[in-house]
């Protein structure tokens, strides 16, 4: 703390000139400290002195002394209150003001008691405040400290609350996260709850600001009620409200009196299969249940339990075939070629061909063969499309195939099956053989070949057959086939109706789901629905 030098005018004999000299002498010291006895400032141009000179004098001598020195009465000098020094032991209104300001600046934790008495706690707060502002920490509140205290404390930014664990985000889209959209969301949620016999509560939906992943956002929020069933896994709810529908369906199902009569194991299966928020099997199962839920509500408890168990056992509840979007990661590859092949033996025709080599980053290689010129009137996938589909196959599947053949003509077997099944337009799409050849046939009747996802999915399915037969053999009543059968019996549910056709189809359909759903929430949902089969694939198939 700088040594404080005071200039005192002891009597009126000292001249203003003398005083000014003293002021000049002490100027440096005064700059170091803001603690003064000065209590007021005089108006400028008094007694011929400039404003600055008088201010200097006031700072150093005190107002009263300057007033006396100037020989003027208070009638000719206007004194304006400016600040009052506060220090340990002070009390009064200025100390109260000080304490209030220190609290505003959060200089003390806990806040000071605003009692107008400058005690040790106020002193500590003053020290802390002075340090925080880069002032001399002398504990004396003078002009500079008052000036710093008088700077308006910016209003604290109100930090919105973080999303609570029972809250779901209906939207943060700036186009819709507005109060005028709240009613629309209330209506949608209401519909999805009432369909499952649950009572909505519109007061639980509101537009507010919340912190999501550390960022404050405007959002429409739904507070989830436990009576509606387990809380959806998804926090961000899509406009289709599928996640809400899923858990409300579980809530509605479990609220049925007949639920008590469903065996424990089946309860778990039903909860998982009905409650899946994103997978096709759960969506199809819910759609099936929704169609008959109103009548189930009126049934006896036994019949309700029977109707629920039918969701597991009956054909026609799940999707016809697996058609999940293929989400597994593509394996990078290079396509080399083509190499011309004269008189290549396609299925059903011999024709000139081009051969490409697909080299995958993980070391696997495939050959892709295509006709040099397309057969007139036949439409097939391109070499690039075939290569693209193969890149979605896990290594275990690519390792059991060696060739993708884009056949020059339709399957020569087709006319036979057209007769056997009285289906004139019977048309094969793809063949996977034990020799490691995947054949894709052109279509004569239409250019509308199956889309990318169907092609990817079918290749996963077909190579799944090749993989299972090569790895487990063809005797389905022994070895790993028996393990799979036990898994089917334990899981009870099938991923599609097609999977119910035979154990071989169940393996291929489950593999298709297992590969397609990788890297999505669906994967964990399916794992809950067919856990034993996924356990086998974890060990045997390894994507």
């Amino acid at each position, binding site marked *: 703390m700088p040594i404080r030098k005071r200039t005192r005018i002891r009597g009126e004999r000292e001249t203003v000139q003398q005083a000014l000299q003293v002021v000049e002498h002490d100027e440096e010291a005064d700059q170091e400290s803001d603690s003064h006895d000065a209590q007021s400032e005089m108006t400028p141009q008094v007694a011929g002195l400039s404003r600055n000179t008088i201010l200097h004098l006031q700072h150093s001598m005190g107002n009263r002394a300057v007033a006396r020195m100037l020989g003027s009465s208070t009638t000719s000098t206007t004194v304006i209150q400016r600040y009052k020094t506060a220090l340990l032991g002070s009390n009064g209104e200025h100390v109260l003001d000080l304490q209030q300001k220190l609290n505003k600046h959060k200089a003390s934790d806990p806040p000071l008691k605003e009692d107008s008495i400058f005690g040790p706690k106020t002193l500590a707060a003053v020290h802390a405040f002075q340090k925080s502002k880069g002032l001399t920490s002398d504990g004396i509140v003078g002009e500079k400290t008052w000036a710093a205290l008088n700077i308006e404390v910016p209003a604290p930014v109100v930090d919105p609350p973080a999303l609570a664990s029972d809250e779901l985000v209906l939207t943060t889209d700036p186009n819709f996260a507005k109060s005028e959209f709240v009613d629309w969301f209330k209506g949608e949620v209401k519909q999805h709850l009432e369909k499952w016999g649950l009572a909505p509560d519109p007061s639980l939906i509101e537009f507010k600001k919340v912190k999501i992943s550390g960022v404050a956002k405007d959002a429409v929020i739904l507070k989830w009620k436990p009576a509606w069933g387990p809380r959806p896994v998804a926090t961000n709810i899509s406009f289709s409200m599928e996640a809400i529908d899923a858990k409300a369906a579980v809530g509605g199902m479990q609220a049925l009196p007949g639920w008590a009569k469903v065996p424990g194991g089946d309860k778990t299966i039903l909860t998982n299969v009905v409650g899946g928020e994103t997978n096709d099997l759960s969506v199809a199962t819910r759609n099936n249940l929704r169609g008959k839920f109103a009548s189930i509500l009126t049934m006896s408890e036994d019949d309700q339990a029977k109707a629920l168990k039918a969701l597991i056992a009956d054909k026609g509840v799940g999707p016809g*075939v697996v058609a999940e979007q293929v989400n597994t990661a593509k394996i990078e590859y290079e396509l080399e070629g083509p190499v011309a092949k004269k008189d290549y033996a396609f299925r059903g025709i011999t024709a000139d061909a081009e051969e490409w080599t697909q080299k995958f980053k993980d070391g696997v290689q495939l050959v892709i063969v295509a006709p040099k010129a397309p057969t007139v009137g036949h439409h097939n996938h391109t070499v690039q499309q075939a290569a693209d589909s193969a890149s979605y196959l896990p290594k275990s599947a690519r390792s059991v195939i060696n060739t993708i053949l884009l056949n020059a003509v339709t399957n*020569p*077997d087709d006319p036979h099956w057209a007769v*056997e099944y009285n289906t004139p337009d019977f048309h094969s799409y793809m063949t996977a*053989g034990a*020799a490691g050849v995947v054949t894709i046939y052109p279509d004569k009747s239409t250019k509308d070949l199956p889309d990318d996802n169907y092609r990817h999915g079918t290749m996963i399915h077909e190579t799944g057959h*090749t993989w299972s037969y090569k790895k487990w053999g*063809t005797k389905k009543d022994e070895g790993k086939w028996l393990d799979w059968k036990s898994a089917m019996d334990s899981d009870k549910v099938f991923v599609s109706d097609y999977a119910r*056709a035979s154990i071989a189809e169940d393996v291929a359909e489950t593999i298709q789901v297992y590969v397609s759903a990788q890297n999505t929430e669906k994967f964990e949902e399916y794992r809950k629905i067919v856990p034993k089969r996924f356990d086998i694939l974890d060990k045997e198939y390894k994507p």
Partner: protein
Amino acid sequence: MNEATSPAGDKHPGEILYDDQVDGRQWTRQATEVPQTIAWVEMDGTWEAVIRIEITGTPGQRRISKFGKDGAFLESTVQSPPPPAHPQPHATPAPTKTPVPRPTPPKD
């Protein structure tokens, strides 16, 4: 050479069992009655006789799997999918409805 003989001249055992698990039917055909491509499958340069054909799947999309001697898996063919429903469903879910603001009617 007839259908009971492979392109390489191998003799077929004679009968093929059709096991239709979609319709729940079974029937047999003589190798001589069916096209050569039904009765034989090429495996790494040799021709394997088809002994059993298993038909699975659904009536709209059958899968035909061929098995040889000792039940060995030979190949599996899937029928083209039925034409997609129109309009074709989106690959990714779309909002069922787009919220439309409801302006409050002005008060008199």
